[in-house]
């Protein structure tokens, strides 16, 4: 395991290009493009203001830098460093900006979520989408990039619009049965849209691509409901994490609960392995869930989540048997964790100066060799699973893993 030297970054904006060749790092108002392997600076772009968000286009040819304060979006090209593009939202303001999956359109959300402006880089044309909903996951693209689902709010009711991304044509527009829509997510196969209500009510609605309601699922009433939702990569399962410290997994055939996974403070299953970071134990956390990619048919799937009340714990479940597999106890609250894109390997960071790796073979703790205090606040895997970018408050570091290093 090798560590690169430390580089400066700001706002923890450090993204790897989807093809894995480049890494983009923001330093205040500069954008530094580096080669992902050698970390050699390839390009250096200067933006007009402090960059608050960067995103690579899907084909890794362009990168956008959003400056919310000034309402500017600047787009840079990697092939032609001279090429430039600047989108100014002016008085409309800017709160969010993102690429469309084809890499040729920019979707800007104006201030107060008044509208979403779709800027085309091909035609310089502009489209407006009114009444977008101001919620956590109000917009989602299918994996193949053909369709976009957008949550809207009209007349005090939630609606969903499905657009065809190639021409931004409205395909379907329907009302949802939610009180206050909190998020939407496409299944990986792009056929089912999961819609969930705010945490005041536990309600998950499943709509088909053509807008039909397939199923409604509600585990209980009168308590705080859904916190996070994750599809399995094969679209077979939908995992719902809720505030009652349980994860419920629905199957895609009947959309009924398959299994309920409990996260208990005391673990009674003798088969589950617990890794504990040395020294004290503590409690409390956030419920995020993620599924690792399907590796082979033989390997078992894992889903890992860290619990609401136990932020120091990461629970890894065997997705084949839906049994508790491993529990990782950390010393401090888990800041983020991410599955390796290629294999069943989990990287965790807790804000300490160590990065924790878990794989079915075992656990590994590596201290970042850095002068001074390097506290890992977030991490990103390289698309090929060979390296991890570790980000602290104002520095970044790349950790290279040997492919043979499985544990």
């Amino acid at each position, binding site marked *: 395991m090798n560590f690169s030297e430390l580089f400066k970054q700001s706002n923890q904006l450090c993204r790897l290009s989807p093809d894995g060749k480049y890494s983009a790092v923001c330093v205040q108002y500069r954008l530094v493009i580096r080669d992902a392997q050698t970390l050699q600076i390839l390009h250096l772009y200067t933006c007009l203001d402090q960059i608050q968000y960067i995103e690579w286009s*899907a*084909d890794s040819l362009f990168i956008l830098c959003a400056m919310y304060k000034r309402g500017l979006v600047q787009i840079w*090209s990697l092939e032609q460093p*001279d*090429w*430039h*593009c*600047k*989108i*100014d*939202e*002016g*008085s*409309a303001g800017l709160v969010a900006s993102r690429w469309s999956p*084809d*890499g*040729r359109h920019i979707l800007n959300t104006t201030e*107060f979520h*008044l*509208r979403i402006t779709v*800027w085309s*880089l*091909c*035609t*310089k044309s*502009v489209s407006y989408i*009114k*009444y977008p909903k101001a919620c956590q996951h109000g917009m989602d693209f299918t994996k193949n990039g*053909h*369709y976009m689902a957008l949550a809207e*709010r*009209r*007349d*005090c009711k939630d609606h969903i619009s499905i657009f*065809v991304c190639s*021409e931004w*044509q409205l*395909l379907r527009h329907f009302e949802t049965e939610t*009180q206050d829509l909190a998020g939407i997510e496409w299944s990986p*196969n*792009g*056929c089912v849209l999961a819609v969930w209500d705010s945490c005041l009510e536990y309600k998950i609605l499943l709509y*088909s*691509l*053509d807008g039909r309601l397939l199923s409604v699922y509600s585990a209980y009433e009168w308590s705080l409901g859904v916190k996070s939702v994750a599809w399995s990569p094969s679209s077979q399962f939908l995992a719902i994490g809720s505030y009652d410290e349980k994860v419920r997994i629905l199957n*895609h*055939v009947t959309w009924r609960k398959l299994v309920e996974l409990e996260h208990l403070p005391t673990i009674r299953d003798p*088969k589950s392995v617990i890794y504990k970071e040395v020294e004290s134990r503590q409690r409390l956390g956030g419920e995020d869930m993620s599924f690792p990619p399907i590796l082979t048919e033989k390997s078992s799937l894992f889903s890992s989540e860290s619990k609401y009340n136990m932020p120091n714990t990461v629970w890894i479940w065997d997705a084949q048997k839906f049994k508790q597999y491993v529990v990782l106890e950390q010393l401090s609250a888990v800041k983020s964790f991410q599955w390796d894109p290629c294999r069943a390997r989990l990287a965790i960071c807790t804000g300490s100066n160590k990065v924790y790796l878990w794989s079915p073979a075992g656990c590994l703790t590596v201290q970042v060799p850095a002068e001074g205090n390097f506290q890992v606040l977030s991490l990103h895997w390289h698309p090929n699973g060979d390296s991890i970018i570790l980000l602290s408050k104002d520095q970044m570091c790349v950790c290279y893993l040997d492919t043979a290093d499985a544990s």
Partner: protein
Amino acid sequence: MGDWKVTSIVEAGNPPDAKSFILRPASPFSPASTITLHRSPVLPLPNLFNQNVFCWGDNVEECVLYLSKELNKLGLPALFDDSFEENPASSFSLVSLINGVYGLLHLYRKNATKVDGLEMERLKSFSEQDCLKNSQFKLQEQVAALEQEIATLATKEEQRQKSIRNLNNQLKSQKEEIAKLQSVIASRAAQYLHDLKRKEQELSKLKEKMNHHLTDKKDKRIAIDILNHIGRADGRRPLWRTGKTESRREEEMYKVLATNYEAQIQELVLDNAELMRVLNQMKRELRGFLSPDKLCQANSPPSLEEETSVNESQEATRGHLAYCVQKQWNTLKDHMAKLGVVAMQTSPVVGKNDHVVSITDHDKEIANLKLELEQSKEIIYAQQHLLEDQLAIQKEDLTRGSDLLEEEEWFYKERQLFEEQSKNFEMERQRFTEAAIRLGQERKQFEEERALYLKEQFLNLTPFRDQRTKPKRKPQTSFVVTSPDQENLSPHLPTQKISMSRRCQHASMHTPSPSFKCTKLRRHSLPAGHELYEVLIETCFRPAPTEQLKKPSSMRESPSNQRDSATQTRTGLRWIGTGFFLNEHDDSLCCGHLCSPI
């Protein structure tokens, strides 16, 4: 029995006879009665009520008549012959009398037995009565106790009832509360929704307004500044948005959905097939397992039939298949239950339990590891114990030594102290002895000098006065002068002074000096020459003896200087300066007492 006697008294009417009628006792056959028949009827008055007298010679016939009547009444034949009507006076028959008596006797015996019986019965009844009374008493007590119990139980029941009522009330109140809260929640929810709607409407209005402004303003700033267009990702030209494209999009969407569903269906079909296969296999295996058993012989034929039917049309008999397998499984379970635990242990389990094997392997491994852990723990404990024992042994030695050391130290200290003290005592003793010697010597000297003095005085009385000045001017002869009252006061003082002097001269420590005593002594000293005396003291007790000596010598008259100094040097070193002072006016030698220097 007394009645007829009374009546007979009435019938007789003869006063003397009447008096003689007496109630007879129960034995009318007593010889006394027969005797009275023949005796004289006249009896004294006291015998009026003598029971033995019924008949006397005169009233025989009457008596007989009477007796006969009575016997008739009693059911016995009369005492008379058949010739009674003819000649009543002589019809008396002894035989009949004897018969009558016999009959009476018989009657009497009967009555006596009756009476006995009655007595017995009476006694029995009395005892029964007692028994009954006792039992009644006991039962009454029981009744009282039971009543008490009943009372207590009743109170308990009341209490329980009360508590039940309370709980019911509480339950009611809780339910009411719940209902109330739910209604509150519902009303609040409605209220919030209403508020939310209102706010949203406001917000949408604001948004509309803003949009309006934005679009109206035609803000030139909202623009895109792009160097040059970039091509589409897929390289194709964009299409116009027409109905055709829309429908095409719809088509595409439905295609996607349809393909997805078909894929799902395929998967499900495969799953289904797999499950069916597994079920069939299970069924076959179960059948194979159960067929040797007599209990399941009945099941086998229908299952065979069902299997064939299943093979033909799977969908129709899907439920049947599951049902059939379920039934077989149930019979298997019963069978196993019957066989019992031992059978379960020994009977071969059908191969559904592959995972059990792995579990036991796992368990075995875990058990082995645990064993190893235990063993190693034991080893560690044993080693620890041994180590502790060794350490303890070592510790013991050390502690023993240390104890002794302590004791030794203590002893050493004590000995030191003791030696010090003994030294001190020795010193003191020495001092005291020396002091005593000195005292003796000084006493001797004093006596000598006293004698000298007296001699001188005596001689002074002579006209050879001038020649005696020299000896007069020997005030510095230092010797201890103890005045008688001083001796009384402080016999220790001289010794103290000696020791003090010693100490002063030897530059040793000072003893606490009884200065007040000195003052007293001073008072004792004669007033004349007081100053001289003081000076003497001061000079004599100055730390530098040479100076000491010199000064008084300077104060003295010159001719005696050398000599005085000589004497002083001789004596000043050794003696406390005490002394005389001469009152030159009246030539009286005053012996004073030098006080201590401090």
